[in-house]
């Protein structure tokens, strides 16, 4: 298949475009997502190419967007909707938790809801507390929902394609800090654009990266780092910074979770550091820590460490103190290497 260097925005756009071309039941809508193509331009050109009724603007009602998508999905369509920022997904929370997640179960499979809810998430863009949140764990707790987070253009397209084709509702969080380049958390250094990266060589046609398979971004012997989204790149930088031979695992999908890859790695390394941007308490790192501990207890040589956002809202002026950067991750790596005491 021909490939092309793409940034993450282009890769996501291409995934939707390819699916819309292939399947007339796929359509896309959201706030400013039609004519304008979305505030981050992920749905750019789709209206022009596929027509007004297949890519359109929606009223500013996140609950209405998800509810309408659910109704469409039970009709047989595969709507891909955009929530402008993950910080604004809460008004739709009831429709996602009480409806999307439960319609298949409560109807014994009579009705199903193959919707994809895309939403840019995460910080590092000076967005303040309402343009920076990482609410993924609020969805991983909900049986019936799938939760997917890519870290690079190649996966973004492959995973979004899988999400659209998936017969279950998928919440697809896009690390907006990575839209234009692989940001590693050294925020004072210039960011290199995606085109220099292998994972930005994206096939122009259709391909699928299956949900539930992690990607080992770096093999290593000493410690396993579990990360997703922007934190994958921060973790790679941190491993280098700390000079630790870390195995960096990009989870890619939190639900379903690739427990095998995690377990194999931690059993090999005997150590584990978990990194995410969301606040610590009840973040997805808690679940990962619990799972690793349950399954690898007798292999662990040090306590599992979590490096996360603080238990505060995301503060505008303290972006880089809040953001788990490579130094904080490196400190955790070193601590874990020395037994965590």
């Amino acid at each position: 298949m021909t490939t092309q260097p793409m940034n993450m925005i282009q890769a996501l756009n291409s995934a939707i475009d390819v699916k819309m071309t292939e399947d007339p039941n796929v359509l896309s809508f959201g706030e400013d997502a039609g004519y304008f193509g979305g505030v981050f331009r992920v749905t750019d050109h789709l209206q022009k190419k596929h027509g007004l009724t297949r890519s359109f603007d929606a009223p500013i009602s996140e609950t209405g967007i998800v509810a309408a998508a659910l109704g469409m999905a039970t009709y047989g369509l595969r709507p891909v909707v955009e929530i402008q920022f993950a910080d604004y997904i809460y008004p739709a929370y009831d429709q996602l938790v009480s409806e999307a997640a439960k319609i298949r179960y409560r109807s014994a499979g009579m009705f199903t809801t193959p919707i994809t809810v895309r939403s840019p998430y995460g910080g590092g863009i000076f967005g303040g507390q309402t343009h920076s949140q990482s609410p993924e764990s609020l969805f991983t707790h909900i049986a019936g929902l799938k939760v997917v987070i890519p870290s690079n253009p190649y996966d973004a397209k492959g995973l979004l394609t899988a999400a659209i084709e998936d017969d279950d509702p998928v919440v697809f969080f896009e690390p907006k800090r990575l839209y234009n380049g692989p940001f590693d958390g050294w925020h004072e250094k210039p960011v290199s654009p995606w085109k220099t990266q292998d994972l930005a060589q994206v096939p122009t046609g259709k391909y699928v990266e299956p949900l539930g398979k992690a990607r080992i971004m770096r093999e290593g012997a000493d410690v396993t780092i579990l990360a997703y989204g922007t934190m994958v790149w921060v973790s790679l930088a941190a491993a280098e910074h700390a000079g630790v031979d870390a195995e960096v695992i990009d989870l890619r999908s939190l639900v379903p979770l690739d427990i095998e890859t995690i377990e194999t790695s931690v059993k090999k390394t005997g150590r584990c550091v978990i990194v995410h941007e969301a606040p610590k308490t009840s973040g997805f790192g808690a679940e990962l820590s619990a799972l690793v501990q349950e399954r690898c207890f007798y292999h662990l040589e040090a306590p599992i460490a979590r490096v996360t956002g603080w238990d505060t809202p995301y503060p505008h002026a303290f972006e880089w103190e809040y953001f788990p950067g490579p130094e904080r991750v490196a400190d955790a790596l070193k601590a874990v290497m020395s037994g965590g005491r």
Partner: protein
Amino acid sequence: MKKNTQPLSLRVPEPTGRPGDAPDFSHIRMDGPGVMARPEVSTTAHAMLDHAFGLIRVLDDEGKAVGPWNPRLDPVTLRRGLKAMILTRAFDERMHRAHRQGKTSFYMKCTGEEAIAVAQGMLLPREDMGFPTYRQQGLLIARGYPLVDMMNQIYSNAADPIKGRQLPIMYSSKDFGFFTISGNLGTQYPQAVGWAMASAYKGDDKIAITWIGDGSTAESDFHSALTFAAVYRAPVILNIVNNQWAISSFMGIAGGMETTFASKAVGYGLPALRVDGNDFLAVWAATAWAEERARSNQGATVIEMVTYRGAPHSTSDDPSRYRPGDEHEKWPLGDPIERLKQHLIALGEWSEAQQTEAEADAVEQVRAAGKESEAVGTLGQSRPSVKTMFEDVYSTEDWRLVEQRREVGV
């Protein structure tokens, strides 16, 4: 700089009557039968504002069908409607009793509201999806859904079509155009709009119909449904079943003392019809009007069905604690079964004897279904196999569910 002449005070609305008081319905605008005009289906919402405030009625006190909304149904249809309402009531009676007998944990009746779902279920084909609340059992019954399947659901037994997953009465039937009921109020309303949008998107000809209670119009989903319906001109019929009560809260707590529920359509530019919900013919005619509008690509209609919740909210409720005991008797719009019966008798198409026979027949149908369902088992005596608990969470079981299922040993 403040200009108050007297201190502010908080107003909390109260119903006209509480237990012990005499019922008083003087606050409800009642127009006589036949007085509301029937606008063309293509009329703009703004040009028919009156219909958001008036009351469309067809049957008069003598059981005669009067005025422009008379749908002129043939006697066969009328008798089918009457029988379906009778059957619905008989079903409710028996299942309510089944609860007292410990056969189920829960039941909800629609007593006094039968005309709505029955007429609409008959009028619209099953291909048109209904997004119901928990008081539209009449839709399934009117469409001939097997009573025994309803009971199996209520008993969560091994034959329950939805495998014991839901609280009793939360039916689901794709084939009968009955969307899986949600326990969460209001959520179905914008979903119906989305379903209707999908039909329009596909260039199909199916429309959606949905119901919400007076109390539940306060939910957010009501607003998003009407917004989306108006903006995308969705082919959907949006019913508000105003049965005067929301558990113990009278409709004033949802704003019903300030204006009509039908008038909620005005702010979205949607046409509204306020209808006597206990008048089978009025319900039919208004629905047919909305159906024509939807099918001809002119979009959604909001219909307020003015009715009265004759029964307790559910088997967990005791209305004698919060409303006058005889409110239902005094309800000015009467009983839908009585009124259609009277109409058919007035037409010379029905008799008291036929009524008695129809009632007996309904009881017998319910009894037979009950026997069949109870043979499978009532709540706790029979149920689907335990391993189904882990199915249908996702399209395929993930490792967590496999492990958890194994932990249960199934």
